[in-house]
């Protein structure tokens, strides 16, 4: 188990990066411009790539360098590019109708972090890992999950939904790097490719939404009820 006996420098670096990506998730939650979401997402992906490399270095998993490279390439460059192309085609620059003001969303997001910490602390105690970086990783993982769901719930634009889903995935990927660095490389690579296909499918569907429904806001999707 890597996290149980980690030297203090490595532990601090891991913690710093995990917290940085959590903060970037809050940037996404607090902004209403779609472009800002996208930059924050790209930055978050780069932080995660750096984290992969750091874990590979300190934990002695050379294959993680490959994962770091692919993460930076796919999540950091290619995915944001795909999403950027969709944004450009749509001419939607920001969320117009908000259920929750960005400021209130930040408060709810903060509460979800507290909740995640409570859960992780309990799990950490039962594993005798209290006070290690594992608890922090689990907290960040769960809270990015909750923040992603919050974004899905309070935003209407199709693009915000896509980015919300990508935040969900980023959270898992980040936690997995710290908690289970030994996860087989094959699986990680397949998941990365899978993500690309997902976003490509979303792109096609968004086009259909524009062409056949005439709107990309989920507020307009209310033909099917009951």
């Amino acid at each position, binding site marked *: 188990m890597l996290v149980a006996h980690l030297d203090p420098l490595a532990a601090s670096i891991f913690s710093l990066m995990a917290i940085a990506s959590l903060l970037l998730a809050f940037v996404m939650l607090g902004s209403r411009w779609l472009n800002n979401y996208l930059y924050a997402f790209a930055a978050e992906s780069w932080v995660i790539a750096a984290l992969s490399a750091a874990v590979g270095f300190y934990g002695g998993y050379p294959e993680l360098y490959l994962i770091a490279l692919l993460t930076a390439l796919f999540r950091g460059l290619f995915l944001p590019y795909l999403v950027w192309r969709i944004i450009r085609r749509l001419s939607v620059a920001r969320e117009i109708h908000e259920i929750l003001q960005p400021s209130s969303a930040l408060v709810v997001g903060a509460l979800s972090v507290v909740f995640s910490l409570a*859960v992780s602390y309990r799990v950490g105690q039962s*594993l005798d890992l209290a006070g290690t970086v594992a608890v922090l990783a689990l907290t960040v*993982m769960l809270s990015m999950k909750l923040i992603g769901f919050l974004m899905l719930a309070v935003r209407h634009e199709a693009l915000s939904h896509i980015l919300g889903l990508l935040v969900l995935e980023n959270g898992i990927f980040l936690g*997995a790097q710290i908690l289970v660095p030994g996860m087989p490389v094959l*699986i990680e690579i397949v998941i990365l490719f899978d993500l690309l296909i997902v976003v490509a499918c979303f792109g096609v*569907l968004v086009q259909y939404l524009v062409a056949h429904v005439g709107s990309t806001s989920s507020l307009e999707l209310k033909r099917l009820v009951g």
Partner: protein
Amino acid sequence: MTGALLLVMMIAPAASALGCFLLRARGAAEKLNLAASIMVFVTAIPLTIMSARGPYHYWADYIVLDMPGAWVTLCTAIVYLLASIYAVGYMRLLPEEEEKLWSFYALFSGFALTVLFSTVMNNAGLYWIAIELTTLVSTFLVGFERAAESIEAAWKYIIIVSAGISLALLGTVLFYWSGSFVLGPVYDMTWGALQQAGSKMNPTLVTLAYLLVLVGYGTKVGLAPMHSWLSDAHSESPAPVSAMLSGALLNGAMLGIVRYLAICDAAGVGSFARTVLVALGVLSLLIGALFIVRQDGIKRLMAYSSVEHMGVVALGFGFGGLFGVAGALYHMLNHSLNKSLMFFGAGNVMRSFGTKDIRDIRGVWTRFPVQGSLWLAGAAAITGAPPFGLFLSELVILRAGLERGYDWAVYTMIVLLIVIFVGFLNHFREMYFDREPEAIVELLPLSRWCVAPMWFALAPLLLFGVWWPPAMWEHFTAIGRVLKIGLP
């Protein structure tokens, strides 16, 4: 031998999808898909029988043919065959789609392939990817007709299900983590390895991971309260696709829950895990009952019936023990047959009357005596009336519940099944016996392709209602012993 058969079963739909894509002609695509579905069906039967002597492992243990997986494969193969026969007739009723019909068949074969894939994945991570792929392929089938409603349904489907199964991915990672305390940091996350390591895993972590996985794959299974995509997707997709979604895909995702349930049982948190599944099952029955009673859409009615039946299957596995598992597996097969029949009938009626609204469909029996009788028999069967298969499987599940001390769930289930029986058949009473409106609508004629698969579905359903083959019972108890759900 098994390896070769398995390979044939995977290559057939893959080749069909590729062929449709390359030839881009309607006639060839129809035949290719039909041929693939026959191949899959023909190979699935011996594979299911052979699986009893397994499990067989292939490709560095990434692929396994075991008894629970093979059973779901068989259910998938049956629905794929029936739906492919039906699709020939049904898709010809959509003249506006003639141009891109090849893409329908390519996607249809691809969808069958991904579901079949998910049943033989031995690695929890790859299983997740297979399930994700089923979503991506079927999204485009749901939105195939390109009407505003179908695109809306497709969008809701992909967003809700992707969000749901990202929870399953988190659960999978946590399961890997809990296994790494026992098996070391790098190991192959096969179902068998997790089940064996189960007794040494940390119960708190396993519980957390299981709950995430249950909600995640539960979304895909359509268990309430994560069922909201199901009614839209099932009602807006072309009828053969609805049958595949309901009869094949839902079982494929249920298989994942069952495999994780077996791991929880090994980890000593089985009774909590099963109770949660039972609670979700009861809630699905409740939601199904409420929406079935007040329903106007004919295909939405069938969709909520799927929510209900997945609830029943969840109850079977949740009760556990040999009876519970056997009843649930039998129910999977019967439901696959029955729901295909119901969707075929609904598709026929919807096309010939030109509406999805139950209030506009009247005098089905006088207009379609043969097809109407088949559909009505199917409606009686799906509500659990004897002498059809679902009656037997529900009875066994109820018995399992009483045996295992889930009395509250059993009594709630009985009440809800009665409510569903009344509500569901009331809609059929209206469609069959209510007075027809003055204006006679011109009805579209239906080909034999549209009615034949209804016969093929009803005949075994009747057979399984009066005779539960002893070999099948032994097969089920053997699966129960492999999974060890609720067994000491």
